[in-house]
């Protein structure tokens, strides 16, 4: 945020007009990233400061095709028994696996794996909370810490799979798809309520702020 940097007054700062999470603008566009990087490094040559410059080049906006309706890799039918969100989550993960495999192959990486669990194991772990029979925490971690990285893994798996399908969905479309059109999103929302109501402080903290994005809470009228 420009306002925050202006208040902090670091010796040198470059304001960039990109979404949060992308300080160098455009993933997969090395030329774009390089221009941003050189602009910020050139600030080292400033004779005096503090310096706060604005970077003028915008990241390309998503096209109408990219934003009009999520180019979702899999259009899920609602599980027959929506009461069993854990089962629906496991089924979705299985259905997404070809797309996630493709994403990992193309990118030669995946950002899943924080918990050390397979996706099937992660789904069962999350379901254990939905079913009021939580599995044990990971060694040395609280319930909240364990559940957090399990959620991170599941969300990363979905996001990566979503990006594999032709159509180049933008970040907002992926977010909307996950939270509005998947059993995983519904499971996360249910999990949040369970955490907030828990007696475990680590779960309360997790449920309060670190499962559902503020943007989704607002769209759902929960804020």
């Amino acid at each position, binding site marked *: *945020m*420009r*306002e*925050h940097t202006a*208040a*902090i*007054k*670091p*010796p040198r700062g470059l304001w*960039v*007009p*990109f*979404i*949060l*999470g*992308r*300080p*160098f*603008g*455009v*993933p*997969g566009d*090395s030329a774009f*990233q*390089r221009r941003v*990087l*050189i602009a*910020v*490094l050139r600030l*080292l*040559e400033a004779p*005096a*400061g*503090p310096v706060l410059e604005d970077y003028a080049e915008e990241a390309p906006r998503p096209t109408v095709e990219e934003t009009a309706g999520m180019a979702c890799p899999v259009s899920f039918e609602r599980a027959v028994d929506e009461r069993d969100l854990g089962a629906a989550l496991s089924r979705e993960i299985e259905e997404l696996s070809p797309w996630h495999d493709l994403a990992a192959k193309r*990118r030669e*990486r*995946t*950002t899943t*794996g*924080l918990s050390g669990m397979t996706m099937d194991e992660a789904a069962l772990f999350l379901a254990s909370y939905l079913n009021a029979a939580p599995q044990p925490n990971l060694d040395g971690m609280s319930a*909240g*810490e364990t559940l*957090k990285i399990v959620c*991170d893994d599941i*969300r990363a798996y979905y*996001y*990566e799979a979503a*990006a594999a399908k032709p159509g180049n969905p933008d*970040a907002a479309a*992926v977010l909307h798809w996950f939270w509005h059109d998947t059993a995983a999103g519904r499971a996360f929302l249910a999990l949040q309520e369970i955490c907030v109501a828990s007696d475990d402080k*680590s779960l309360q*903290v997790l449920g309060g*702020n*670190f*499962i*559902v*994005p*503020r*943007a989704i809470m*607002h769209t759902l009228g929960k804020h």
Partner: protein
Amino acid sequence: MVRLADLPDWEREHMLDKVKDCAGFDARPWVKPPPLKQCRIAIVSTAGLQVRGDRPFGPSATATDYRVIPGDTPAMDLVMSHQSVNFDRTGFQEDHNVAFPLDRLNELAREGVIGSVADFHYSFMGAAPIRKIEPKARELAGLLKKDRVDAVLLSPV
């Protein structure tokens, strides 16, 4: 950084409310580094990055520590455990350079635009109360000096 006007009203208010908590550079240190083509550069991120297998960042209020990211860390082993769910991760998932431009920095070093790239880079999780991070930040500054770093690229998310 991001454009405040692009945010919805409620998010804008949330962000502006944090300005009062921003720590200022009271002494406003100004250090003139060597010419860019001689500078040794390190990246310090607040994206909650870690090498796969390292301990994930913990709850925000206590996560004042940092993770070490060796310069030869393969992209496959660079992961994110930031607590926040309120910034985009799809960009990082696609290409770590959009948040942690190590490949770009190495290219500039090979081309002679900068002098060299540090052996070690670091990541905090930028969610802890800012002044509580200071002891670890000072510790990290000492490590950067030992790595002969002239300038640090601070990369927030």
